[in-house]
């Protein structure tokens, strides 16, 4: 099964040593940022002397001004809205279809083993290569960006959902069958609660990958959106605004990723069995704890 490549940060230990370490970490980060800014300014200044092509590395304050103008510009929000709309619709469609397919594959061994090689093959392929097909099928408007977003969201969610289904404690499934639960109740009362964590992991990855998918589609062909905006600035050689849009996109992507990470941490805390959690922990346990 294709691994989605989850990369997690570790958490330092507690105590006085931690405070000292925290201080060192903060200093390292601060020095790195200062060093990066200094290096950038050196390169930008070298451009003024013709050592490096002048306009390609503008000074930091030019970029800062460009960022300010972007966030004060109505057209930026129009483009942001288009990208956001394409992202949300694409992500929701792709995720819902992926969860449904993942549940189906998870409950059906033969179909799963038959389909997984093909899903892995397409899943590991750069999705951008399907853009010509998407443009042919959905046209060049926002629909194609939504379709690209759906396609991007589908694969990480379907793989993690399938894995989550396979790892559900068989005891829980037998309990459900003992109570003669119908298919819908099995899904809502046994499967979904049991695989919340893997599904959220998939959704978290899906959010990040959908952002990339939508932006890349807008770069190639669009009439609006942040990717389109970036492309326009590049074509017109407006470098500082181009950097400004890139920075804003990165900030938004980081915020989305951070939001999903917090959601996952919250779910993990909710699911973790602790003495203080009591009933909630036991209720969670009956819904399928022990899923890794």
């Amino acid at each position, binding site marked *: 099964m294709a691994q989605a490549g989850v990369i997690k940060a570790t958490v330092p230990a507690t105590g006085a040593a931690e405070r000292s370490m925290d201080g060192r970490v903060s200093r390292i980060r601060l020095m790195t940022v200062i060093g990066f800014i200094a290096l950038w300014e050196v390169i930008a200044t070298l451009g003024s002397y013709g050592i490096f092509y002048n306009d390609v590395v503008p000074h930091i304050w030019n970029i800062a001004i460009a960022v300010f103008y972007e966030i004060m510009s109505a057209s930026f929000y129009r483009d942001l809205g288009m990208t956001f709309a394409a992202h949300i619709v694409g992500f929701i469609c792709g995720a819902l279809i992926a969860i449904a397919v993942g549940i189906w594959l998870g409950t059906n061994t033969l*179909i799963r083993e038959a389909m997984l090689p093909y899903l892995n093959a397409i899943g590991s392929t750069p999705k951008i*290569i399907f853009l010509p097909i998407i443009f042919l099928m959905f046209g060049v408007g926002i629909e194609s960006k939504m379709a690209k977003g759906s396609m991007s969201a589908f694969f990480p969610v379907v793989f993690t959902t399938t894995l989550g289904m396979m790892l559900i404690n068989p005891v829980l499934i037998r309990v459900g069958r003992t109570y003669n639960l119908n298919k819908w109740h099995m899904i809502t009362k046994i499967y979904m609660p049991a695989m919340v964590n893997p599904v959220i992991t998939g959704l978290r990855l899906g959010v990040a990958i959908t952002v990339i998918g939508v932006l890349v589609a807008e770069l*190639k062909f669009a009439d609006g959106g942040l990717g389109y905006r970036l492309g326009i600035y590049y074509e017109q050689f407006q470098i500082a605004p181009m950097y400004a849009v890139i920075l804003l996109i990165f900030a938004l992507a980081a915020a989305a990723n951070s939001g999903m990470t917090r959601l996952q941490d919250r779910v993990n805390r909710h699911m973790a069995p602790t003495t203080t959690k009591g009933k909630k922990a036991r209720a969670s346990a009956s819904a399928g704890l022990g899923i890794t």
Partner: protein
Amino acid sequence: MNKLHKMPVLVGLFGVLACAVLLELSVNSGWVMEIIVPRPSDTILSFPIVQEDMDIVGNFFVTLAMTAAATLLALIIGLPFGYFLYKREAYGLAYEGWLAAAFSTPIVLLYPLFLVLFGRNYHTLILMGFIPGAIPIAIQTRQGLLGVSKTLVNVGRSFNVSEQDMFRKIMLPSAVPTIFTGIRIGVMYTLVNIVAIEYLTDFGGLGRIVSQLYDNFSIPETYAAILAVILVSTFFYWGFGRIEKWLRPV
């Protein structure tokens, strides 16, 4: 027993063939527009044309070579950097979060910036492929070394093993499976980024071919080129999966 074991493969193949036949009939009947989805038979038959017009095999090696170069660069930078992050705990803690965040950001969007800085050439593509490849290698190298069992380390210390031997004979072999996972993820992301930028910039190997065939409105050939990219990605994914299994048989 053998028949049951092979059933999924047969079912899968049958499923693909059934879809292909259904699609062929749909296009023939006009239910599906031929200019949007060509007949599967036309797609298969267009491979020789794509080879003659676009040298798909040659361009496969162009993409492969750039991926290999970018991966090598990622290993040269990523492995030592990951080791550094492991050895210097403060730096590891300082940078790992940033690296994890950078891994999930759309680095491919930086391509106009790279084109502007380095020009439209193979070096730019290799650089753009190297960055998303180096990040997981560095992170997983650190994680792999941090994850070495304390018991193994204590055993080494009890035998008064030197620092060098400790690393070579205990830490590294123990960390290799995790490091290799990072390499596998790195290679896949390198390939994905390189093909993506080839497509966006109309420069390079397989990605460029897909873009140009689409521009020429050669639809069956476009689908053939897309299939070729799927085959390449599958080959990489399967190949590295086999190597990983060999390294980590359990």
